[in-house]
Structure formats: C-alpha cells, structure tokens
C-alpha cells in the first residue's frame, strides 16, 4: 500500500547533544522531593513525554492528570500501550503526536471514542508501532545507541503510515534484512512506583514493564510513589532497586497515584470508575469526554479531592 503523503527522513537526537543535555543535569545524591504541581511544571510545551506502566497497570495517573490540568501544548506522548490517560491527553488538547501500539481503555470497554474522533478527523499525528518496537526504541535510547535492529514491522503497512520513513538494512554479518528502529530519548519520563527514597532510588513490584529503559533513556524523570522510604531501607534491599537515583529529577509522594488503574500490592483497578467513564464516552462521544474533563480533571482542588470525588480514597478497587 503506497502512501499518498510524503514521508520525511527519520531523525534521532545527535549523540553528543544527548550527552551534553545529560551533563547539564544535577546528577548528585540530593533531595528531589517536591509537590505534584511543582513536578509537572518541569514539563515544557513541545516535550516528548514517555509514560511508564502499561495499559491500566502502574500508570503514573496522578502525574498525567496534573500535567493535563496545566494545559501543556504540542506534546508528543509515547507509551507502549495506552489506556484511559490517552483519552484525557487528547481531550485536553495537549498532544500533537501520539506514539503507541494499542489505544483503548482496555479490551472489555471497546474502541476509544476519543481516539476515533481525533484520528478520523485528522486532529492528531497518530503513530502506531508494534509493542516490541516501542520497547526496542526506548531500549536503544537507554543504551545511548541511535537505533535497534529488529525483525518486526517488515511486510506490514505499519511503516507506510508513519510520518517519517523507516529504513531497513542488510546485516553485514548474516545477510539478513533487519528493520532499524530509531531510538527514543524522551524529554521527560513519568513513572509511578510502589516505593522510592527522596533521592529517587526506586523499587517497584509486579510487572516491571519498560520503566527501567524509560528512566535510562529520558532527559528528565519524574517519579511518583505510593510512599517515600528511608535511604537505609533501599540500601538494605538494593537488589530490588530498579531505577537508579541519578536518572531521577523529581520525587513526589502520591498515595493511590495510579488510580483508577492498578498498583500491584496496593490496589486493583477501580473498575467502577473505568466503567462509568467508558459508559459516558460511549453514550456521548467526545462531548462526554469533555464533560468528564471539566468535572474530574479541571474541577477538583487537587489529586486527593479527585480521589475523594471518585470514591477511590476508601476502597482498594477491584470488583465491586
């Protein structure tokens, strides 16, 4: 299938510029604790923001929610699989480009009306990549390499639909054709964890997702955490530390910071909240999403007010 659009050349950050941006950061062992609004103010218009967790698991939901309230513009958002937060970023008018492998609140809730509205009316540059591709692109970024050779996305229409042109090469050692996936080095990574210390040494339980690669790849990392623990506790179980402090720029203690999504060991998905949101957008489409934004994103005084409004402060989610 041939594109009737002209694809531009794919570009990745120049290596020395990437290193220079890293060199400018204060990477010492220092206290990085701040408030949620302070942390999200570190995101600039036009930034590429990569989101940790996956689907409705360990989503940095409070961080996304607060960022959307600050009404940023022209963001690129990437996440391996996108759930509820994707609708809110699009409905909030924050996004120029969305990179993901799958977009919908979850299989049981059907198609996202908000995604349909934005793609079918050409309101966003929507880039679909395979799940593994996004993982490899973050990993290349984490490794300080410009691309990752892989054996996926060939023979498919996926590369045709991208704004920039992907290249393949013949491997000089094996003669195999490989797809060269460009590294992602996001300006900001948002990651939610079960626990970390005030320096940003982070431990997470359950599914690890791509969060370690995100942290290593990004120019800036904002961590939200169910609880801030003492550095001595980190040092007494350092084999459980997944994100090193030097990659982290902000630490925010946000209990239930993944709600309405799940956080292993703390709470299950708040299905009643997700059901209600899906029902509203199914019935009212983009208008339903806009009404939800007014009520539940822009309306509350702060994150705890939102938790209370959604009755997520007094239960542990799961089946009602």
């Amino acid at each position, binding site marked *: 299938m041939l594109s009737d659009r002209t694809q531009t050349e794919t570009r990745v950050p120049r290596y020395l510029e990437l290193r220079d941006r890293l060199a400018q950061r204060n990477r010492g062992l220092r206290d990085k604790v701040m408030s949620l609004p302070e942390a999200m103010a570190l995101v600039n218009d036009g930034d590429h923001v990569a989101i940790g967790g996956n*689907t409705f698991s360990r989503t940095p939901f409070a961080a996304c929610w607060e960022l959307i309230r600050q009404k940023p513009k022209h963001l690129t958002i990437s996440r391996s*699989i996108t759930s509820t937060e994707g609708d809110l970023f699009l409905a909030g008018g924050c996004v120029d480009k969305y990179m993901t492998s799958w977009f919908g609140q979850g*299989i049981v809730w059907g198609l996202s009306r908000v995604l349909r509205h934005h793609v*079918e009316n050409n309101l966003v540059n929507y880039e679909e990549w395979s799940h593994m591709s996004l993982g490899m692109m973050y990993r290349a970024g984490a490794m300080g390499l410009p691309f990752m050779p892989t054996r996926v996305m060939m023979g498919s229409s996926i590369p*045709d639909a991208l704004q920039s042109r992907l290249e393949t090469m013949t491997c000089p050692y094996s003669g195999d054709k490989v797809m060269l996936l460009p590294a992602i080095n996001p300006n900001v990574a948002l990651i939610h964890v079960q626990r970390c210390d005030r320096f940003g040494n982070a431990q997470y339980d359950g*599914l690890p997702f791509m969060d370690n*690669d995100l942290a290593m790849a990004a120019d800036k990392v904002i961590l939200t955490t169910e609880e801030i623990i003492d550095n001595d506790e980190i040092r007494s179980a350092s084999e459980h530390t997944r994100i090193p402090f030097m990659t982290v720029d902000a630490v925010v203690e946000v209990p239930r910071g993944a709600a309405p999504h799940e956080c292993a060991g703390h709470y299950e998905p708040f299905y009643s909240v997700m059901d209600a949101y899906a029902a509203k957008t199914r019935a009212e489409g983009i208008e339903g999403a806009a009404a939800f934004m007014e009520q539940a994103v822009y309306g509350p005084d702060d994150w705890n007010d939102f938790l209370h409004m959604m009755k997520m402060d007094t239960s542990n989610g799961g089946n009602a």
Partner: protein
Amino acid sequence: MKTRSQTKTPAYTTTELLSVMCARAMSDGQIIFAGVGVPLLGATVAQQMHAPSLTILFEGGIIGPFIRPGRLPSSTNEMRTAEKANMLLSPTDVLSLLQRGYVDIGFIGGAQIDKFANVNSSYIGPYHAPKIRLPGTGGGNDIASLSDTIIIMPHTRQRFVEKVDFITSPGYCDGGTSRADSGLIAGGVKSVITDLCTFECNAPGNVLSVTALNPGVSRQDVLDNMGFEPEFSDDLAENAPPTEEELGILRRLDPDKIYIGK
C-alpha cells in the same frame, strides 16, 4: 448474513467453540504466546485436559501463569494475568523470546483477514482517511512477524475480505515467497480457526484453504460468510464438537460468562 445448515440450537456459544478448537491446537510441553480472551480460555482448557505442562507467555511480560477461575484478566498487561507465574519480565524481553525463537505458537485475532492470512487490527478504510480507527497491533505484529501463528477469527463476510485495508500483522503478504522476501524469514500462519471452519496456508501459493468444517457447517455456509472464495482441501475433515468436559472447564473458568457469552 450468517446462516448455518444446522437446525438444532447449538449447546455451546461461539466463543466456547473457538476456545475449544484453540485448545486442541495446543500440545503438551509447548510454549505459546497468547492474548486474553479466546487463546487464554483455550490454553487453560488445554492445561486441564491434554497439556498440563503447556506454558503461556503474555506480552505484559508474564511467563507461565495459571489463571484463577472467576478472575479472568481483561488485559495481557495487568496483575491478574500474572497469577502463579514463574517470572515477570518487561514486555521488551518477553517479546524478545519470540524473536529468539522460544515460542511454538503465537495466537492473534483482528478485525479483518484476507486470502493471504494478513490481519488488520488498525484501520477500516484508508489509513490517511480512515472510517474507523481500531485499537491497533499491540503485540500482534510482533507475534505474526516472529513465530508460527494461529489466527482466531469470528467468521463473517465483513471480516474475510479479498484484501485487508491495512496489514497490521503480516501473514503471507502478497502470497508465494513475498513474506520471506519482505524480511520475515521465520514463522508464518499455520492455521486460521473460525466458528465455521479451520483454514491452513500451504506453499507455494500460501492462500487460505479450508481443511476442516465445524460440526453442522456446510461448504456453502463458509462461502456465504466470506468476501472472497477460498480454496477447499481435497481431504476436507470435520472437527469434532466440543465435549462436555471441555465446556465444563470453560464454564468453571468464567462463571459469570463475561467472555464465553450466554
């Protein structure tokens, strides 16, 4: 419109039938890559019937879970899919197991399939001006690119089309050797399981060919529900209906009938 020549009400739902056919395609000792829904239901039936050492991988990063009855997950990337797993990896690493060659069969679904078993789960209509934007590949493209694949698909005329609007997960591309020529030198579609029949693709043409009909289904039923005319195998078989034992396992697994239907 779907028609069937059978007259009596079937004693099982479409999802139950697909899940049982899926289970029978799995062998003991295999490592399979599954999505939630039919492949997971099928894998759990297989584990309790003929394949106790079947290992399930999920793209969320999960190796070898055993799903708890009544707590079926709604995503391959949530903690319910991790029940009693041996190991939790990143998606990047578990998908790398596909690329390394550890997976015997990967299971995928989709919105459309064409005669070369290419699957579309991205766009209905042209991608630059789509009628419907669908959820997308997830790990589907990775599975289809890197492993032997079985496709599970409800059998309707809208889904079985001459040419898919968009190849999300490549089958045999334009047929013949075009899959390998594109760079996909391993894997490929082994079969397509529907509620009416089973298809296979065979070299040199690599087009869909009906190899077995489901109970009570005629050739004409298949033709009436396709947007193109498939080949039929010379030794066309008939799949045995789901047994009470198979159905019993499914119904204990999903007591609220969220996935298997009523």
